[in-house]
């Protein structure tokens, strides 16, 4: 048992994540070819605009379910909504925000773009503290809008006239997933601007702009889109009750900042906060790179129902990041791989 624990703590979870992401990507993009169907409340971007998607992103279901009059929402349709919502929460709670880091196809695509940038040797950028605080609110605004607009299409809100039916599933109209995921099965039909009327024109143009921003932004900033993702906002409301947790022991922390350095979404609290235990902040995608970069024993820990799965260790740090073996019995400090050759 101790041996297994040591093996896991020494392992390279980023490599595991890379493989897991590819498998999840194949499933969520091409799963339909093998007739898989996993429901309509998936807590990640499983986009049904892609014909072969084996499920439906919860956001599109929710937008459709909310597109109803108050009367029906408090009756039969409300039940459907509640069932969908509970399914979503159950799905989500199993692996918490790891849906973003391990499964979301849009996240995976962004990680691939990051890899390309890294290979090209182009530097990445970060938000400064102030912009970070301001910008992170945007996803909640989008979440609010995607709830309120469908409601406003069937009901008069605050005496306003009903919203245009062309706003149906408003977030999907600007979501890059609608255009990008069908591309992987060779379907380019979503790449258009709809000139039917002003509303469709505005929405589809916005969609194309967001798509362009998605590619450009994620080239220069790791996980650019995730920062504005309403799914992430919805997740963060339920994240604290999930059994999968990322905990920090403040006493063991030296505040060296390694975890913040490697964080793709730039969460500063992981390095600076030594008082709180639960470290899954609203932008976290649970990739656990912070745990990998932490050289202090037992400082950061991933656990599931209180069973520790992956813990930061000094040995693991040196082995993973610097390929240095830390075997007491073999003190010559053998280098496993990838040591640059001395000239």
């Amino acid at each position, binding site marked *: 048992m101790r041996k297994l624990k040591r093996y896991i703590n020494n392992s390279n979870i980023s490599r595991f994540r890379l493989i897991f992401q590819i498998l999840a990507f194949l499933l969520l993009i091409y799963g339909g070819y093998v007739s898989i169907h996993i429901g309509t409340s998936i807590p990640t971007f499983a986009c049904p605009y892609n014909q072969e998607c084996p499920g439906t992103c919860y956001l599109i279901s929710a937008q459709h379910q909310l597109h109803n009059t108050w009367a029906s929402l408090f009756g039969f349709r409300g039940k459907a909504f509640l069932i969908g919502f509970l399914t979503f929460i159950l799905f989500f709670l199993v692996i918490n925000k790891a849906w973003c880091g391990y499964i979301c196809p849009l996240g995976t695509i962004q990680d691939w773009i990051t890899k390309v940038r890294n290979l090209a040797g182009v530097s990445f950028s970060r938000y400064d503290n102030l912009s970070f605080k301001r910008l992170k609110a945007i996803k909640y605004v989008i979440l609010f809008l995607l709830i309120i607009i469908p409601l406003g299409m069937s009901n008069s809100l605050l005496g306003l006239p009903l919203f245009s039916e062309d706003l149906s599933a408003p977030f999907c109209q600007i979501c890059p997933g609608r255009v990008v995921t069908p591309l992987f099965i060779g379907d380019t039909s979503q790449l258009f601007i709809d000139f039917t009327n002003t509303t469709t024109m505005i929405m589809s143009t916005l969609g194309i702009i967001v798509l362009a921003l998605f590619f450009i932004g994620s080239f220069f900033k790791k996980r650019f889109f995730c920062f504005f993702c309403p799914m992430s906002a919805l997740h963060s409301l339920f994240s604290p009750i999930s059994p999968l947790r990322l905990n920090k022991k403040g*006493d063991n922390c030296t505040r060296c900042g390694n975890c913040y350095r490697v964080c793709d979404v730039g969460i500063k609290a992981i390095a600076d906060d030594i008082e709180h235990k639960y470290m899954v902040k609203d932008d976290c995608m649970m990739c656990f790179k912070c745990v990998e970069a932490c050289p202090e024993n037992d400082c950061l820990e991933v656990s599931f129902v209180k069973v520790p799965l992956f813990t930061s260790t*000094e040995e693991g740090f040196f082995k993973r*990041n610097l390929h240095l073996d830390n075997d007491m019995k073999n003190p010559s400090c053998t280098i496993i791989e990838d040591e640059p050759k001395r000239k």
Partner: protein
Amino acid sequence: MNQKENKRYERLSSSSKKQLVIESDQVLHELQTEFTDNLSGMDYFYGVAHQFARGQLSNQEKRKYIATSCVQVPIELIYAAGALPVRTCSGAHSMSMAGAEFLPARSCSLVNATFGAIHTNSLPVSSKPLAIINPTTCDQKKKLSEIPSGIDIPFYTLEVPPTKDSEEAREYWYRIVKKFTRDLEQITGKRIRKSNLKEAIFRVAKAQQAFRQLHQIRMGHHSIRGTDALLIANTFFYDDIDSWTHHLHSLNSELVQRLTGDLNRQNSSSPRILLTGSPSIFPNFKLPLMIEKMGGDIVVDEFCSSNRLLYDTVAVDEWNMYDMIPAIADRYLKACTCPCFTPNRDRDRKLLTYIKDFKVDGVVYQSFSGCQLYELESMRISKLLEQENIPMLYIETDYSPDDKGQLSTRIEAFIESLKAKKLHLIA
């Protein structure tokens, strides 16, 4: 410099060098003979210290040297530029006498000695360094470059922010280190490439790993004398870093063997002491040696010359220049507990962690007279330790041996009281 002055300088230089040899040999002799349980793995480190005093290190090779006056200089970059870092921080009383000629009366011994060592050219290497990298950490050190003394090595001022918690300080430091990289290329005439820097990070990380291993071994057991551990850290980059790492690894395995054998130094009555404050740099082992001779066991130290120098790691996400340089910069800023940063709560936390991990019975706080930063922080630390019910002995001293008698009385009393407390607790 006229001829008279020149002659005087030569006399000063040669006599302080001679005194340095006498001083360090004396300390080494004490280290090797006063105690009965010497480790054979220590021979290498004693040897390096022996050579150090004679300025004979790395003599055989003609290499470029960059002198550093503080541990806050990113040595990975110096290695990557194909040069060797040489520490000028000196612990020699003779050097502090030489330096005192130029500095104000109440300067700290360490700064005096550092200046003296540079001025009399008593560095552990044969050829002159290309430059002296002088970080703006404490006030006394940062003004060194402006003192007229005829030193013909150029000073390079490395700007260190006065605080480390804010994002702005971090950004500023990133830019300074980036600039330092470019300037270092100018100084050494060698371009720092991606592969060189990666290799340098690996080399230092290997040394750090060995040092952290020693730290872990010390945490669990009474295994190595505190003075020996101090010497090990002190000899880091007095010699080739790779051979230092190699020898530390063999020492570590000797320690592990010793723990499993009969030679365990477990002696429950000797009080476990944490040493902190102004750093004891070889050959100034006055205080630590005194503690050990009186029966105290220095289980851990919080000195910039040892733990702070080697403990904190570099974590690189993308192995490109744009990420490696900030990663290196972070190592020297974020986890640093130097009192030149305000606020410095991390030091409190570090001390408390050490006290818990190493089961410390008492703290000895050394402060060199004139070292205002450590003097100032002693107030906070003593209050903190009082709350935690950990006895602390505050000692203000310098490099001169004059106060030995008075100090030994105080230390003896402190250690006896700790012993009594410990025995009382056990009984």
